C-alpha cells in the first residue's frame, strides 16, 4: 500500500529507513556538512536538518543545548536552508527535511519560506508545533511545490490518527512515547499496537522517533516500523567529539563519530 515516489522520487525505499537528525550549525556549518556525509555513509536514507530555535517546546535538554550552540554560531532558518546546496556540493544525495519551529517560518513569511526551500532544493519540511489542524495552508503550499510536509502522529492522537496518517506525505513521523525528544524509549505493547494501527492507514513509510538511543532500540523499531528516526542520541555522540573538534582533531572526531553510528544502527 506504500507509495514509492516520495521526496521528488529520491526516496525509493519504503522500509528499513534510517533517518538521522542534525542541528544545522552545531557546532558549525562545516561540521554539520561533515557529520551529514558520515551519516549518509552509514546508511542514512533521509536527513532531518534541524533549525535551531530559542524556545524549542518539543525538545529536551540535549537538542536545546545543540540549538544554543548553533544559535551562538549565528545559525538561522535562512542559513540552514542555504546550507542544503553546500551539503549537495559536498556529496549529500539523500533527501533533506528542514525541521523548524513555526515562528521563524512565520517571521519569514510562508511564500518566501517556500521559495527559499525550492531555490535550495529542499525535499521536505517538518514543523513540530504545527499540528494537522493548523497546517492546512502550509500543506497546500508544500504540495504545490512538490515538497513533502512531514506529519507527526502520537499515541494519544486517538481519533485523529486515521486522518493524520491518511494525509501523510514523505514519511510519517510516529512519536513512540509521550514526552519531548531525548527521553527514554518505552516500547510497550501499547506502542506496538499504536504503530500497527498507524501503518494500516499510512500511504507512506512509518518512521518511529523519540527516545531511540541504543542499538537494541533500533532493532526493536526496525522490527515493527518502516524506519527509525534518531535525534538526541546523535547530538550526544557529537557532544562526545566536541573537545576533539575544538582542539583541531576533526578527522579523529569524524572517525569516532562514524564508528559510533555504525555500532548504533548495525
Amino acid at each position, binding site marked *: 500500500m506504500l507509495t514509492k515516489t516520495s521526496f521528488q522520487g529520491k526516496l525509493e525505499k519504503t522500509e528499513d529507513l534510517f533517518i538521522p537528525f542534525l542541528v544545522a550549525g552545531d557546532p558549525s556549518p562545516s561540521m554539520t556538512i561533515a557529520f551529514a556525509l558520515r551519516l549518509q555513509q552509514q546508511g542514512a536514507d533521509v536527513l532531518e536538518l534541524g533549525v535551531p530555535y530559542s524556545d524549542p517546546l*518539543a525538545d529536551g*535538554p540535549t537538542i536545546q543545548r545543540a540549538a544554543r550552540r548553533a544559535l551562538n554560531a549565528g545559525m538561522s532558518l535562512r542559513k540552514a536552508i542555504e546550507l542544503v546546496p553546500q551539503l549537495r556540493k559536498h556529496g549529500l544525495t539523500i533527501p533533506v527535511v528542514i525541521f523548524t519551529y513555526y*515562528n521563524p517560518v*512565520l517571521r519569514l513569511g510562508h511564500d518566501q519560506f517556500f521559495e527559499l526551500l525550492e531555490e535550495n532544493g529542499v525535499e521536505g519540511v517538518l514543523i513540530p508545533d504545527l*499540528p494537522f489542524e493548523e497546517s492546512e495552508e502550509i500543506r497546500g503550499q508544500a504540495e504545490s511545490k512538490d515538497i513533502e510536509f512531514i506529519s507527526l502522529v502520537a499515541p494519544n492522537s486517538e481519533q485523529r490518527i486515521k486522518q*493524520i496518517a491518511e494525509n501523510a506525505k514523505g514519511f510519517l513521523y510516529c512519536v513512540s512515547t509521550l514526552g519531548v525528544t531525548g527521553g527514554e524509549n518505552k516500547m510497550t505493547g501499547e506502542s506496538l499496537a499504536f504503530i500497527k494501527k498507524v501503518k494500516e492507514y499510512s500511504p507512506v513509510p512509518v518512521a518511529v522517533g523519540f527516545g531511540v538511543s541504543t542499538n537494541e532500540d533500533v532493532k526493536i523499531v526496525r522490527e515493527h516500523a518502516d524506519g527509525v528516526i534518531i535525534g538526541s542520541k546523535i547530538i550526544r555522540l557529537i557532544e562526545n567529539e566536541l573537545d576533539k573538534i575544538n582542539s583541531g582533531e576533526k578527522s579523529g572526531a569524524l572517525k569516532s563519530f562514524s564508528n559510533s553510528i555504525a555500532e548504533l544502527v548495525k
Partner: protein
Amino acid sequence: GRFGDFGGKYVPETLMGPLQELEDALDQAMEDQAFHDEYHHVLEEYAGRPTALTYADKISDYLGGAKIYLKREDLNHTGAHKLNNAIGQALLAKRMGKEKIIAETGAGQHGVASATVAAKFGLKCKVFMGEEDIRRQELNVFRMKLLGAEVVSVSSGNGTLKDATNEAIRYWVANCEDHFYLIGSVVGPHPYPRMVRDFQRVIGDESKKQFLEVEQELPNRIYACVGGGSNAMGMFYPFLEDDAELIGVEAAGRGIDTPEHAATLTKGAPGVIHGSLTYLMQDDNGQITEPYSISAGLDYPGIGPEHAHLFQTKRVRYESITDKEALDALRLLTECEGIIPAIETAHALAQAFKEAGSMSKDETILINLSGRGDKDMATLMEHFEEEV
C-alpha cells in the same frame, strides 16, 4: 479556537489530545450550573469576593479631572487577581479526575495561587520557575513550599518566566495523562486563553454591577496593565460591547526606544509563542527575545491572543509606561490613598493618572487594581530607600 486572526493551537502533536480533552471538559463544565455554583461559592467563601470598588477621592481631587475608582483585586486571597483563575482551573482539574497540577511562574504570584488551590483542593502541585527568578523571589518560593508545592528550578534559557513556561509545557507533554496544566494567564494554546478569561471575567462582571450602583452609568475609561493580560481581559471582557474606552498598559521598561522593555503590542510582531499565534517580541530571524520590565509580572515577551485581536481591531487602546513612571504612580497612590499596589498594577495607574487631569469632573475612570505591592517591597526599597 481563534480571536480573529489570533490564537490557535501551535503545539507538539502529543498535546493535541490533552487539549481536546480539556476543551471538552471545559465546555461541559461551563454548561453545568453546579460547576458555576461551586466556582462562585469558593470565590465568595474562600477568596473573599466580591472585592471592593473603592472611590479614590484624594487622588481624584489631586489630579483635578475624572473621578477615579479602583477595583480592589489586591484584596483577593493571596493578594492578586491570579487566584480567581487558579480556583476555576483547580475545580476543573478535580472534575476531570486529575490529581496533579503543574504551573509556571515568574515572580511567583501564579505559583503561590496554584500552590494555594492545590492545598485547598488536595492536589499535588509542581511549579516551574526559572532559576534566576527563584533567586530573585526567595520569599514566594518559600511560600509555595510551605503550601506543600514542589518548585522545579528551570535553568534553560535565561531562567525566567518564558523558560519556566517552556519547561512546564515540556513536562506536560510527557505527563499529560494524569497532569493538569494550570496556566496563569490568557496565553497558551486554545482553550487556555478563553478559559482563563472566563475565570477572570468575574472582575469585570462585578465591576460593572458595582459601578452602576454607585455612578448609575458605566465608566468612561477603564485601565488595566497587560503582561500576559489576564487581569485586563477579565476586566475588559464584560465591557467589550459597551461604550467604555478600554486601555491596556504594557511595560515600557527603560523606554520603548531602548532594547529593554516588554511592550509586546507596541513594539512586537505577530508570531507563535507558547502554543498561540499572537504578538511577541522577536528578532528578524523569528527568535524570541528577552523582555525587560522592573515588574516581574509584565516581564513576558508574548501577550494573550485576544489582546492581539483587540489591538488589531482597535477596540482596546494599548499604551506603555516606563519603570520610572510606574514607580511614581505607585508612590502617589500609596501616599494619597493608603494602598500600596503591585508594580504591575502601577503601570495601569500611571497611564490613568496621565489622562485623568485632562478629563472633565463628570467623567469617570475605573482602574483594575490587580494586586498588592507586598511582594515588591525589596524592589521598592532598592529604588526608594534614599527618598523615604
